[in-house]
């Protein structure tokens, strides 16, 4: 505060202008997406590059929701993302708990193994994964996507969960176990309630990651009825590349779940991004 009060007024104005510029930079592309989605089709070419549309309509959204397959794509993506988030959170919570509460031989090896899976280019395994999934007869199934995405997200989610467990004093569960609880009871009654925010943040991070994954979904899903949102949107774009309003309306729909989860995990961004270290 003191520093800001002493600075000359010109510098204060400059600071606020810079902040305003950053906010405008961050919001402008999303504003444009929404603007074109709300512009009536007959006005797209005359109003296309105007800052503000002269008329608004929800027709594009209606068309996308009821005349195309986007509702199905949306449902598939929700299933995949929620399934991935739930499976990852469960498995990563167990692994993070082991890292946080136990000292055991081979711990460094397991950590190294997790780091290795984060360092090599994921596209290296896209061909082998395709072959394996095809051999198992799981092509075009959402299950295969959930399994693959879960594995991708486990290392990051484990380190995140570990950092949340590390924040809970070990004495708490030891006291509960001293009073006659088994470890499982101590976990359920003492640790679980305290780690719920951490679990929520992990769910949010993994959901966001699974929602936007593109390459493995393209590779493993070719049939129309199991397409996830990114795959569906790209095939729509290549087929109807002049339906600007509808494409952007679909884009706005893809944005909704991400924004909801972002509002939810916003408080944990620093912890998530710093414990992930290499993850975007």
């Amino acid at each position, binding site marked *: 505060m003191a*520093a800001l009060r002493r600075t000359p007024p010109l510098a204060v104005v400059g600071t606020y202008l*810079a*902040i305003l510029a*950053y*906010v405008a930079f*961050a*919001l402008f592309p999303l504003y444009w997406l929404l603007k*074109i989605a709300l512009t009536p089709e007959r006005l*797209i070419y005359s109003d296309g*590059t105007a800052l503000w549309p002269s008329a608004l309509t929800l027709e594009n959204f209606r068309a996308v929701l009821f005349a195309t397959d986007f509702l199905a794509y949306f449902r598939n993506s929700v299933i995949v993302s929620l399934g991935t988030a739930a499976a990852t959170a469960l*498995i*990563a919570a*167990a*692994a993070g708990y*082991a890292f946080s509460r*136990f000292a*055991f031989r081979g711990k460094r090896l*397991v950590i190294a*193994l*997790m780091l*290795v899976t984060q*360092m*090599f*280019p994921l*596209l290296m*395994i*896209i*061909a*082998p994964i*395709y*072959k*394996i999934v095809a051999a198992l007869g799981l092509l075009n199934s959402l299950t295969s996507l959930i399994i*693959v995405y879960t*594995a*991708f997200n*486990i290392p990051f989610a*484990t380190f995140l969960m570990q950092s949340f467990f590390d924040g809970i004093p070990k004495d708490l569960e030891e006291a509960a176990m001293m009073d006659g609880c088994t470890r499982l009871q101590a976990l359920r009654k003492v640790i679980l309630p305290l780690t719920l925010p951490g679990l929520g943040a992990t769910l949010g991070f993994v959901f*966001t990651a699974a929602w*936007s994954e*593109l*390459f493995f979904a*393209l*590779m493993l899903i070719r049939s129309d009825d199991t397409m996830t949102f*990114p795959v569906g*949107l*790209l095939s729509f*774009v290549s087929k109807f590349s002049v339906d*600007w309003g509808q494409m952007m309306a679909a884009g706005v729909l*893809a*944005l909704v779940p*991400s*924004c909801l989860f*972002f509002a939810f995990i*916003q408080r944990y961004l*620093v912890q998530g*991004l*710093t414990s992930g270290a*290499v*993850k*975007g």
Partner: protein
Amino acid sequence: MTTLSGNDTASGIPRTRFGRAYLAYAVEPWLYLSPAILLLIFVMLIPLGIGISYSVQSINLLRPFETGYVGLENFEALGEDARFWTALVNTFWWTFGSVTLQFFLGLGLALLLSRPFHGKRIVQALVFLPWAVPTFLIALTFSWLLNPVIGPLPHWGAAVGLLEEPYNILSDPGTAMWGPILANVWYGVPFFAITLLAALQSIPGELYEAAEIDGASAWQCFTKITLPFLGPMIAITIMLRAIWIANFADLIYVMTGGGPANSTQILSSYIFTTAFRRLDFGYASAIAVALLGVLLVYAVILLFVRARLVKF
């Protein structure tokens, strides 16, 4: 008395290396870890091994009868493949351009956010929002913004004299790479801002107070306190981020598909195109192994620099 000491193991305190309680104690963490480990081994490490083995085989789904071991043939083809060398150079420019711009804009944002001002909470939420937008959507949004029919950017570019006329920079091989880089900067600034903000807040406030008492200017505070403190952390973050960006092909694949005339093809998008469009898994794996080699060399340099930085 001897019977009592025998009971100790049953009370949960492991006394002997080979007692049942000790065994349970040693096995327990592995029990919790096993789902994670098994999944990582079967979904990532075994496919990784298989992927490396593909690079010395001929595996093309379009020619199923020519499958088999071919030695280093794929790599020899790689050496003569002009697209591969273009992609290697493009990977460098893509990574260098993106990281540099993301870092400086992210640093500026972190410095702004490290001081209190009115409405900071809402500003913080708004400027971090791009991080949460799905990457395929970012790619589509920016290719629309760059399209002169429905996007304002070409018109603005022409108005300020950057472009001679409002055309789509994505269709010109000379300028196409700037499109994905612009989208990547928009997406990546929050990441750098968040990491640098966390680091800035770890600098003890007393240092700045002492400097102020001694009459240091804001610029002196920045170069003499902030930069030396953040230096090592900045170097590591930038280098790790560079690896991530070199592998990050979503934006390029959706915005340009590597074109026009291969001008935006980077190694990772080339891997995907080769596997997905040409279904040539052997050749795709050879490119992937080459990319892994490049990244390994880079990582060794990174570790070397890190050792130097930690020493001082």
